[in-house]
């Protein structure tokens, strides 16, 4: 089974978010970058599926050279080879086109990625890739099992889940509890250094959604503490001051 896992290179979930250059650029100072947590689930499941069914894992990132340590980490976790499309991932449409173009070349059985990136939270790329390739896409996937050429999937919906079956190839946007995050071991880290990482040029497709400026939410006022012995006052505040009850 040939699996393609698409990963994002994003600020750690504990990062302080701030901007520079008149709020037009993300401030990378002191920020640690990681594999997107949802992509990390996709990768972990890919490693398990390879253990069960054999095959190979290719990891793909659309990003500039700075993302290579993140890609190497994915190789250390268990991907066999990597492709980096050398371009800034400007919007979902652009990224989806790059992924679809790599995926068409590789004839993968399964294309996995996270349900969304944790920087722009768009959650659009898997469906766009599916549409571009004329394939089904399913997200957010919590259970993914393969039997022969068929997949059995559980997808989360509001207040519950959907059980589905479909034939490979398809695209899945993953989330927990599809697998547990894998931490690279020493052997993985050593071997990752020599695994192939191919850099390819982007197809020159335009961007449709362009961020002009960033904003931060207004600072929160200090909390109003209410005495646990005076909960009537709390109810009163919620009703008459905040007007939320």
């Amino acid at each position, binding site marked *: 089974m040939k699996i393609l896992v698409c990963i994002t290179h994003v600020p750690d*979930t*504990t990062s302080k*978010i701030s901007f520079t250059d008149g709020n037009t650029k993300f401030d990378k100072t002191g920020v640690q970058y990681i594999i997107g*947590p949802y992509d990390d689930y996709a990768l972990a499941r890919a490693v398990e599926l390879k253990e069960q069914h054999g095959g190979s894992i290719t990891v793909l990132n659309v990003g500039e050279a700075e993302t290579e340590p993140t890609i190497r980490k994915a190789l250390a976790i268990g991907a066999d080879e990597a492709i980096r499309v050398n371009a800034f991932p400007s919007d*979902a*449409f652009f990224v*989806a086109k790059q992924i679809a173009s790599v995926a068409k070349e590789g004839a993968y059985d399964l294309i996995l990625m996270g349900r969304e990136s944790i*920087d*722009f*939270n*768009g959650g*659009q790329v*898997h*469906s*766009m890739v*599916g*549409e571009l390739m004329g394939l*089904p*896409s*399913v*997200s957010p996937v*919590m259970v993914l099992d393969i039997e022969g050429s068929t997949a059995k999937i559980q997808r989360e*919906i*509001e*207040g519950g*889940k*959907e*059980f*589905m*079956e*479909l*034939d490979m190839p*398809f695209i899945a946007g993953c989330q*927990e509890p599809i697998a547990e995050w894998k931490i690279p071991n020493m052997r993985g880290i050593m071997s990752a250094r020599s695994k192939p990482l191919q850099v390819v040029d982007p197809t020159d497709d335009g961007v*449709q*959604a*362009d961020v*002009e*400026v*960033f*904003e*931060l*939410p207004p600072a*929160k*006022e200090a*909390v*109003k*503490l*209410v*005495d*646990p012995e005076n*909960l*009537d006052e*709390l*109810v009163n*505040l*919620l009703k008459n001051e*905040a007007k*939320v*009850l």
Partner: protein
Amino acid sequence: MAALAFVELEEGQAKKSSLEAVSYASEVEGSVTAISFGQMADGELDKIGAAGASKVLHVTDEKLATPNIMAYASAISEAMNKEGSNLLVLAKSSLGDPVAARVAIKTNAAMATNVTELPDTSDGFKVKCSIYTGKAFAITRLSSEKKILGLKKNAISIKEDGGTAEVEAFSPATDDGDFKVQVTNREKATGEILLPEADLVVSGGRGLKGPENWGMIEELAKAIGAATGCSKPVSDMEWRPHHEHVGQTGVKVSPSLYIAVGISGAIQHLAGVNSSKCILVINKDEEAPFFKAADYGVVGDAFEIVPKLTEAIKAQQG
């Protein structure tokens, strides 16, 4: 030319977030056509009309009665063409998101998601999108002629004086290729208030010690008509179902009131709740980080405070 709004029906009823989409489209474009699939309960047409739509394209084809992402995307693209719509508005959801992304490719539209307010059209078309899981916003310019907007909850309030909508039966072309995914079963909590739609949320964390202690959370929720949520460790330990998990890697909520009980307020949890209008934190540790993100707080033992709070609320309800 009318804007198109996708109205999801949940057991025949228009979802509140979908009615927000109708009202949003009507503010932007004036004239709105809604599109809905499957059985529609009595009175829903009036609500959709009041929210701002003058017409509802109603798809009653049996094959499309249950949600099908690819087929709905095809149908909605066809409807956009038919209506000459340059704008599609829908609410973010497990159905709306993938449908919108596919329609964007089919119609060559520019798409923005997590939109939090009406667009700025003074110079082109710019929308404000929530990013970094609510920690920032991106003012995003959409340049294509066709545009698709996925709304975050509470981007706009639902109109009640729009008008009346007429129904038009719509039978979109169906393509076998759109039926490759076979939904074998659907498990859904019934009768509960759905977390992503909820206006009030009561959430519990590890501080509650075990699933057997959720009774008081459910009672508080019931007293105010709230949905229940939880922190990630709580769903990881299976004290609560996964679809209640709130935060960076779970459901993002934006209710008017979020009540957090025995949750420390880790940054990944806050990421899912920071667009709530008002936050009340109940925690025995006055140093808990959640108090920094809260509007109101009570420092003390949840096992004493929560039942008392429920009583106080019931007393004031009379």
